[in-house]
Each structure stands twice: as structure tokens, then as C-alpha cells.
């Protein structure tokens, strides 16, 4: 049985007041808070073991290196990769996808178009768009249906009617909450000889992400979306795919022989981790994975799903509120507009009553501007440490705020 109050005790940041009101933190799709065991792991490493990793011939460096490589194995197990060598540590999802886009085109892998979707975060859209522009390749966006699900028929048309090298697709939309059938999408792409890069930034906490079961070629995610530190992320790649890629960032630790005549590179994953890696971040990320796995993830998933459904039901009672999308399966967030109330005004006033929401375009302009003709939305994104009472507080605050806004509009 999942005990939310027990879990909340691990997140002391939640027990505070802002502007004289108890904090109701509902911006978890942007950043999830770190539980105490993760914070302690990070602090303990700084207290006891901190030193630069790799090649340092002293005890602390050895301990740091071992902790980093243990973290890599922990990440492997979390996403069920075949080998820890398939796990590249990066600065986050954005860092992973930018590096991949650069490497994809810099390694002779790309001899065709890149297809993405209209529900992507800019991090899985702009890097591919810019790389395609630079290399003269087509860049295509697969449309959504009226419910906010990927139009699978149109996606297949794009994959079959164009010379496509790669499909870049999100697992879970950071705006609609749409959970894409990634296994099915990967199988479809592979049937057309197309490789697949998955943005798992939003799914890594909500869904069980098994890269072997999904059969994706690449997958990217961030630590701070799953209770880990900021500044750490992962690029997973099948070993055969990683071996095809030339590094695009160069420096220490990723090289073999360096001469005026040329340079050889380390094996994967080290060849993709130039310079001092964020080893503390990686150690914290592994601790976050331990934390999540120590919870009953099936129970947590069920609780989060029911909490989101409850939030949807309560929000639906607000006059003039419209949700963006109504996908078959939704996880993580609800985005909405309210007639006569600008999202900036709504989120600003809600904040002053203690409720943390997000307003803006959510780094998804193609989705908002081209698919929905909405320039700004308000997003509510609960996590497993949020309570039903907090949803009630948030909805009551929204009622009050919207009424006040309408009174002067």
C-alpha cells in the first residue's frame, strides 16, 4: 500500500510556506524535488570521497571513479540496457539530444530526412531541425489527431514516402501528457529501416522504461525529472549504434593517442564524455533510481494515475476551462486554457496563494502554435508526493484567481 504521507517525509522542501500559504508544488514536469536520501548521497560524497575520476592514482580518485562506474551500472539496470557501456552521461536530455543530432550528421549516419512529431519539446525538435538545415536534409513533423495522440497513419506515411534516416519522438508529451506507444512506433520505424531516438525526459519517472523491450536505438533523459540532481542526464545508445558515431566534443579522458598527426579515441561510452564528467550528478542520479525502486513502482504509478484523473475531474468543474488534448493514455501533466484569463496572470496569482503551476509555451511552440493555435497555457503536473488535498487546494485557488481576473477583464 502506497503511503503518501510517509513519502512526503522524505521531501522536507514540501513542508514550507510561501507567501504565508502552505506550498502546493505542482510543477513536477519541470523539476521534481529531490528526496533526502539523494541529498545525503551527494553530501556524503563531497564529505568523504570527492576527487576527480579516472586515472587519478590515489584513494579518493579511485573511490570517485568506482562510484561513477557503479552509477553507470545502476542506470543500465534501471533502463535494462544490455551493457553499462551503452550509458553515456550528459548534462541532461537537451545535452543528450543536441550531442546525438551533431554526431548523427557528423558520422555519415544521416543520408536522409529526420522525422519528428508536433508534440516534441524544443530539445527534441530544434537540434534535429538545425542539423537538417546545416546538412541539407529534409526535416518533417508528424501530425497529431484531434485528441492529441500521434496520428500513426500519417507517421507511417512519412516514414514510407520519404527517405528517412531517423525518427525523433517523445515517450510522453510535456504538454498534453500523451503517452506514445513507443514499442509500436519503434517497430514501425524499424520496418522502414529508420532508427529511433526517444526523448524519455517525461516518461522516465512515470513509466517503466525498458530499452531492450522498446528496442529503441537511442534514448535520452534527465536526472532532475526523477528526483536526481540537475545537470546530469543520460544518452543511451545500442552499442552497435554508438560504435558508428564520431564524438563531437573533445578533450581529456576521451582520447587514446594524441599526436600532431591525429588522435585516437577511447571506447564508448568514455569517448563521448570529454572533460571531467558530472560524477557527483551521476552518483545522485543512481541514488534517485535506488529511491524510486525502493518504492513499489506499480503502486506509485497507480497512485499518480488516479491523482491525475482526480485533478482532471476537479479542474473540469472550472467554468471556461479547456484542456489541451484528451489522449488515450495520459501521464504526468494537464495543460489548460481558461476563457478570459491569461495563463501568466493565473499562475502569478496562484503562486501568491502558495500554488506552484507553470505558464507559458512549455518549450513546445510547434505543438501550441501550429497544432493548437494557443500561445500560452497553464500546466499542472503532480508527482507521487502530492496529495488529493493539495489538488483540492489548487482547484479552490484557481476558482478564486480566475474569478478575480474576470472581475477586472
Amino acid at each position: 500500500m502506497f503511503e503518501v504521507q510517509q513519502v512526503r517525509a522524505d521531501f522536507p522542501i514540501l513542508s514550507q510556506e510561501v507567501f504565508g500559504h502552505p506550498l502546493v508544488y505542482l510543477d513536477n514536469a519541470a523539476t521534481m524535488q529531490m528526496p533526502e536520501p539523494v541529498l545525503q548521497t551527494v553530501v556524503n560524497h563531497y564529505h568523504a570521497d570527492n576527487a576527480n575520476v579516472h586515472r587519478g592514482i590515489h584513494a579518493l580518485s579511485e573511490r570517485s571513479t568506482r562510484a561513477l562506474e557503479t552509477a553507470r551500472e545502476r542506470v543500465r539496470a534501471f533502463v535494462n540496457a544490455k551493457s553499462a557501456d551503452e550509458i553515456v552521461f550528459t548534462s541532461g536530455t537537451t545535452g543528450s539530444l543536441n550531442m546525438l543530432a551533431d554526431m548523427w550528421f557528423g558520422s555519415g549516419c544521416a543520408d536522409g530526412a529526420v522525422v519528428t512529431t508536433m508534440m516534441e519539446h524544443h530539445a527534441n525538435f530544434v537540434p534535429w531541425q538545425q542539423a537538417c538545415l546545416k546538412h541539407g536534409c529534409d526535416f518533417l513533423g508528424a501530425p497529431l489527431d484531434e485528441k492529441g495522440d500521434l496520428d500513426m497513419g500519417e507517421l507511417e506515411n512519412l516514414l514510407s514516402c520519404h527517405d528517412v534516416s531517423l525518427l525523433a519522438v517523445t515517450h510522453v508529451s510535456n504538454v498534453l501528457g500523451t503517452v506514445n506507444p513507443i514499442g509500436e512506433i519503434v517497430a514501425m520505424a524499424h520496418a522502414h529501416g529508420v532508427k529511433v531516438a526517444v526523448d524519455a525526459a517525461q516518461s522516465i519517472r512515470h513509466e517503466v522504461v525498458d530499452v531492450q523491450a522498446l528496442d529503441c536505438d537511442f534514448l535520452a533523459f534527465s536526472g532532475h525529472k526523477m528526483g536526481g540532481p540537475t545537470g546530469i542526464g543520460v544518452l543511451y545508445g545500442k552499442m552497435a549504434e554508438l560504435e558508428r558515431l564520431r564524438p563531437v566534443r573533445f578533450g581529456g579522458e576521451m582520447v587514446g593517442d594524441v599526436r600532431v598527426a591525429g588522435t585516437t579515441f577511447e571506447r564508448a561510452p568514455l569517448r563521448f564524455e570529454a572533460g571531467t564528467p558530472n560524477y557527483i550528478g551521476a552518483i545522485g542520479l543512481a541514488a534517485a533510481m535506488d529511491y524510486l525502486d525502493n518504492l513499489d513502482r506499480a503502486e506509485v504509478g497507480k497512485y499518480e494515475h488516479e491523482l491525475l484523473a482526480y485533478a482532471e475531474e476537479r479542474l473540469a468543474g472550472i467554468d471556461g476551462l479547456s484542456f489541451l488534448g484528451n489522449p488515450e493514455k495520459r501521464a504526468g501533466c494537464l495543460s489548460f486554457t481558461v476563457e478570459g484569463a491569461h495563463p501568466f496572470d493565473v499562475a502569478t496569482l496562484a503562486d501568491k496563494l502558495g500554488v506552484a503551476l507553470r505558464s507559458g509555451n512549455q518549450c513546445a511552440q510547434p505543438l501550441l502554435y501550429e497544432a493548437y493555435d494557443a500561445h500560452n497555457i497553464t500546466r499542472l503536473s503532480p508527482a507521487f508526493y502530492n496529495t488529493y488535498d493539495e489538488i483540492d487546494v489548487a482547484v479552490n485557488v484557481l476558482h478564486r484567481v480566475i474569478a478575480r481576473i474576470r472581475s477586472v477583464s
Partner: protein
Amino acid sequence: MESPQAIQERIVREIERAGDSFDQFDFLLSKAAELPEMPEERKIADVLVKDCQSQVWLYLHDIDGRPVIEADSDTLMIRGTIQILKDMFDGQPPQAVVDCDVNYIQRTDLAYAFDSKRVAGQAAIVARIKEFAKGLCA
């Protein structure tokens, strides 16, 4: 006539007296309610202020050599800030507009809702007004 600086001091006092943070923003909503709505046909791309996250349409003209602001925004908060600028600058001697340091946001709880991008947006509006006033000084 009160100087822009004196009006700003009065506005800071009014914001602080309004109460808690919510009430301070509520004050901004009240100011928004005072701002006349701009007809839709005047909300054209040519008069949008660059660097503003919200849409701000800004016209500046003068009456007898003194500036008059006509502006609107799609968000109430920014409409409120525009009305405050109107309170401070409409009909003032141009040099007083140029010399005024606009800082009421930074001095009150309103700063909590104005991140660096929004502060830059406000600065862009003020810069346009001051540039116009400077032209009137010549």
C-alpha cells in the same frame, strides 16, 4: 503637478499598504482595470514592443510637447504596469521622464513575478518611453 519620482514613491507606498503578496498583485489588477482598452484594429505587429514576453502594443504621442502613452497588453499584470507608467509619465515635462529611475517593481513583492525576461520587457517599454521623451526635449 507631482513629479514622476514622487508619483512612483506614492505607488510604492500604496503597493506596500495593499497587504500580502496576493493583495499587492491585486493592486496591479486594479490598475489594469483603470487602463482603457485599445481597439483591436490598433493592436498591430508594427507597434509591438520587442523583448516583451507578453504582447505589448505601444503608441506614443505628445500634447503640447508632453508625452502621452497609449498602450495595451494581453496580460492583466502587464496592463497594470502600463497604467502605472501612464500615472507616472503622462503629461510630465519630458526631461522629468528621462531622469526618472523606474524601480517600483524591484522595491516591492511584485519582483517575485518578474523574472529576468519580464524585467527586460518592462525595461524595453520604459526605454521606448524615455527615448520618445528625449526627442521632445530637443
